[in-house]
């Protein structure tokens, strides 16, 4: 049963990666940029939730909502102030700006909350765990929440981009901004919306992550951010199912490495697998190579 337990832990961690990866993938798809500050929005989400519960005394649900709202606004603000002025700039300039924003957010958190780790309140402890196979296998409430939230997010976003007018417009913008404008689609507003969605998801991921690993520091978002970015590339950046697949595979791989090979080597192995996959399939597992007809 330890195999199944590990698998479930992997899926649980992978679900969080997948939610973060979604933000990376959507922003990349639309703005064609790697928003390296995405991981730090997770951390801000964690802190907002922390302050809301510990200092403002709000309940779990209002605190999570507050984190989502503030992170959404933060995402829109960052895009407006840091990225929008660079819309025509070379992608390297945008990338460096994103790294700058990342450090800015980390240092802002350092200034506000200090460098000492904060113990994140246990928001999800009330969720009952699930007993399977006559009690031989226990799925913790947190793991259940992670997996369910991830699946709901994926389903909603897939329906949104596939069925709604605004979602389709978003896909149109991700393919060809000029042509989208010719259709009457407001590209700036669409990009803002994408950052809003991505950052709102980052807040959700922040709460889930901190509930599973309850130590909150200004650098909390960096490593999961990088892993989720890896997951997004692994699955095929720009693809929503790719983010799900990449995130889950990465989570499972990481937990299995920890359990069966070595805790120290797990990151090296995870990234090694990524490199091999990209050598074989440069567009990631579900990424589509685009061919243009002339």
């Amino acid at each position, binding site marked *: 049963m330890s195999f199944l337990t590990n698998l479930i832990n992997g899926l649980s961690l992978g679900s969080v990666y997948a939610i973060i990866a979604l933000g990376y993938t959507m922003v990349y798809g639309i703005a064609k940029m790697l928003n390296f500050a995405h991981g730090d929005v997770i951390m801000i989400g964690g802190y907002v939730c922390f302050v809301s519960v510990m200092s403002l005394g709000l309940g779990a649900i209002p605190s999570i909502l507050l984190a989502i709202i503030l992170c959404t606004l933060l995402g829109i603000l960052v895009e407006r102030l840091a990225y929008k002025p660079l819309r025509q700039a070379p992608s390297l300039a945008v990338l460096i700006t994103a790294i700058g924003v990342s450090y800015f957010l980390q240092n802002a958190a350092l200034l506000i909350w200090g460098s000492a780790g904060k113990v994140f309140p246990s928001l999800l402890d009330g969720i009952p765990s699930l007993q399977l196979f006559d009690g031989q296998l226990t799925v913790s409430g947190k793991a259940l929440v992670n997996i369910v939230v991830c699946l709901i997010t994926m389903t909603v976003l897939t329906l949104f981009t596939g069925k709604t*007018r605004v979602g*389709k*417009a978003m*896909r*149109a913008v991700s*393919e*060809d901004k*000029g*042509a*989208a*404008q*010719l*259709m*009457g*689609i*407001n*590209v700036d507003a669409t990009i803002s919306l994408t950052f809003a969605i991505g950052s709102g998801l980052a807040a959700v991921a922040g709460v889930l992550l901190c509930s599973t690993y309850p130590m909150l520091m200004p650098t909390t978002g960096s490593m999961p951010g990088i892993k989720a970015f890896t997951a997004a590339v692994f699955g095929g950046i720009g693809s929503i199912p790719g983010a799900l697949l990449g995130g889950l595979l990465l989570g499972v791989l990481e937990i299995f490495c920890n359990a069966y090979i070595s805790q120290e080597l797990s990151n090296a192995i995870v990234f090694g697998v990524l490199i091999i996959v990209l050598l074989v399939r440069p567009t990631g597992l579900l990424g*589509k190579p*685009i*061919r*243009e*007809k*002339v």
Partner: protein
Amino acid sequence: MDTILKVDDINVFYGSIHAIKGVSFEVKQGEIVTLIGANGAGKSTTLNTISGLLHSKTGGVTFMGEDLSKTPCHKVVSKGLALVPEGRRVFLQMTVQENLEMGAYIRGKVNPDDLEHVFQRFPRLKERRKQIAGTLSGGEQQMLAMGRALMSHPKLLMLDEPSMGLAPILVEQIFDIIQELHKDGTTILLVEQNARAALHIADRGYVLETGKIVTTGTGAELLDSPAIKKAYLGG
């Protein structure tokens, strides 16, 4: 006839490259007007400036009496001006139907009659409505690009080299469709490499050379002009 589009002394730059040098022309309600010129003369740049993708340093574009210089690109189409851009630029990863829906984006909900209307004009698209646009043939993509533009009910339809890369039979078909659209009341501004065919169906034409309009006249006049024959119609 009323002037529907008036382009007045536009100057367009790509960085330091001065691509359009003081171009002025107009299109009247119900006309087919063609812009012809060699590669790099500035035809696409002119159309892109009218549709708001590019901006002029001077002068302006007036559409149905309204100055468009300050109108953001995404608001232009709702004024009744649609561009079928060079190279089609359909959304390759979206289905035929979704592409057409994007054409009707400004109209909110898609009117099934509009969709049916486009399918009537391009029956091939109806068969393939669920197909991803990237897998259509070049000619089908061109039909899709035109159908997509028609979904917004344009008063003025601008076409940038609609016959590019198509077999002669398809070129003929595209020109027939342009004439049908014109008969149904759409004013047309047509850019073509295929100068002879364009001038045949056009009421008037303008000849663009390195960013300047050098000649203008009716379609027939231009077809007969020895200079034009030599430069654009292959002797």
